[in-house]
């Protein structure tokens, strides 16, 4: 008896002592975003009793994977409601798993919306429902970003969603910007931020300057889309002729040993609307120099329609 009383007293003392240590360690781990998982009542409701218990017992990640697989079965069965429920659970259980957020958003905003587009006959309802799916996808990405503020992938996906689905180029540009500020990002995110900005009414000047920065940085940035955006803006902003990019490209065409890339750039200029005789002339000169067969030469501006990418 004596032993038991003493033992329980010691346990009690330890319990009080450990309390603040555990509490601080939890905080510390939360800070490294380690213990991002905290069982909440709503998670329990979603995960179902069995999954919840297993999730607590060290099998959280494994159970999340299992539910993820179930979500994909639901996809094959075209059950988008069920998919969303399962995606919510998976992401709640494993909030640091970027793939979960990314694919959940993609399934909703792309596949789900496409399904509506193909199956909803009433155009008004169709539009509303599709928008609903876009918003669900956006919500996944935004929650994912909350749990993973360092992820460039989620910002990139969010930018694409704003650009392609919601047609909100200002927000798209901002999301791409965020992506390009994060470690591990791929180069194109910076480009996409500027491209999206070019489509925002009222911010043409700013967009032009950013595009020009890209243009002046290196010839590797001389892509068709960049040329198209810059040439559009040159016209809109009435940029003086001597500052237009075709001059730089024509000058570049004279650089020895760069014939191949210079010709590609000239071609892209023409395709994106350049009608300058100097450009055409330079292109033709290179065609001759490089012996490009007639059928592969760039078509005359007169034969062109509006350039597309």
């Amino acid at each position, binding site marked *: 008896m004596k032993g038991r009383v003493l033992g329980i007293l010691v346990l009690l003392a330890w319990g009080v002592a450990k309390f603040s240590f*555990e509490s601080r360690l939890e905080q510390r781990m939360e800070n490294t975003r380690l213990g991002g998982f905290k069982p909440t009542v709503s998670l329990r409701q979603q995960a179902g009793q069995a999954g919840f218990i297993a999730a607590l017992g060290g099998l959280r990640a494994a159970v999340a994977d299992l539910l993820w697989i179930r979500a994909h079965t639901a996809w094959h069965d075209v059950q988008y409601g069920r998919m969303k429920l399962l995606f919510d659970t998976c992401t709640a259980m494993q909030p640091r798993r970027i793939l979960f957020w990314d694919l959940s958003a993609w399934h909703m905003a792309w596949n789900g919306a496409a399904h509506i587009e193909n199956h909803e006959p009433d155009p008004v309802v169709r539009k509303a429902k599709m928008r609903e799916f876009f918003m669900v996808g956006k919500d996944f990405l935004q929650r994912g970003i909350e749990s993973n503020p360092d992820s460039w992938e989620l910002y990139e996906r969010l930018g694409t969603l704003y650009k392609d689905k919601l047609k909100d180029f200002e927000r798209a540009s901002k999301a791409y910007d965020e992506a390009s500020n994060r470690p591990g990002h791929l180069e194109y995110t910076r480009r996409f931020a500027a491209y999206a900005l070019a489509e925002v009414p009222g911010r043409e000047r700013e967009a032009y300057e950013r595009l020009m920065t890209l243009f002046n940085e290196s010839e590797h940035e001389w892509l068709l889309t960049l040329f198209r955006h810059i040439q559009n803006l040159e016209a809109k902003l009435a940029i003086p002729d001597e500052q237009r990019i075709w001059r730089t490209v024509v000058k570049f065409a004279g650089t020895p040993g760069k014939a191949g890339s210079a010709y590609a750039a000239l071609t892209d200029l023409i395709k994106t609307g350049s009608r300058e005789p100097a450009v055409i002339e330079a292109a033709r000169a290179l065609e001759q120099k490089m012996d490009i067969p007639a059928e592969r030469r760039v078509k005359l501006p007169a034969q062109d329609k509006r350039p597309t990418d």
Partner: protein
Amino acid sequence: MTTESSGPAVAAHASAHKLFSLRRTWAIAANTFRDLVRQKVFYFMLVFGLFLIGTSLLTASISFQGQLQTVMDVCLGAMSVFTMLLAVLATAMLLPKDMEDRTLYTILAKPVSRFEYLVGKLAGVTMILLVATLLMTAAFLVVLYFWQGREIENLQLTEMPERAAAAIAKVKSGTFTSTLFGGIGVIFFRSIVCAGLTLMISCFSTSWLFTVIISLMVIFAGYLVPMARSVWQGPLGTAEVPTHTAILLRLITVFVPDMQLFNVVDDIAVGINVDADVFVRIAGLGAGYLLVYLFVGWLFFAWREL
């Protein structure tokens, strides 16, 4: 028994009696280890091996992204559950068996203190757990290596080159990380804490089954500690908590170890790097639990009628 009586008496060893002798403790630990090995506890590992193979086959049959991560998640999860079960089941048997067979009488009738006996038993189980963890880790690494290869192949086939290179580099540098091994270390540590807890419980429990059930319940409740603590520290989200539940949750916070802190592995597969100081703190906390459990177990055991 027809031989002649023994020769010269064994040299006098009755020098000063040490309060705690490593030699005696080690004898008990080694014996516990040997006894468990001969009881074929490692058959348990065979089940783990089969589980790994099964998981691999299952994962292979579902073809979409994240196979490597799934394998990692499932294997680490299985490891943490297996070591925990092994710790509880192997430890729960020790005392009841010694009492039932009355081997405890012969051991404690030697100049062995009950504390040495408990430490020895725990050390023996720790050795078993160490060997089991090493075996499981070896099997796990082989499986992981195989799946890393598969993942890289997949990425080469499916991703656009610009993304593939980055993704492959990530898979290569992100699979066998120091955090992964740290996490396995935490799994091992947690299993010792579970063993210590079980040993403490078996010091006052009267049956094997009771020990197992109570231990598992405490460990399970350990995963609720963060939630219980948040009740203590403030309102739990929007949920209404009735008084008796609040009291229960407070008891849990005080008497139950926070198992969630030992649950690092769930996050490791995601590729989060855990700082060394977190591991040190977890280890420190685990050591604290072990000492307390041993001491309290000894308090229970010292006054116990055998």
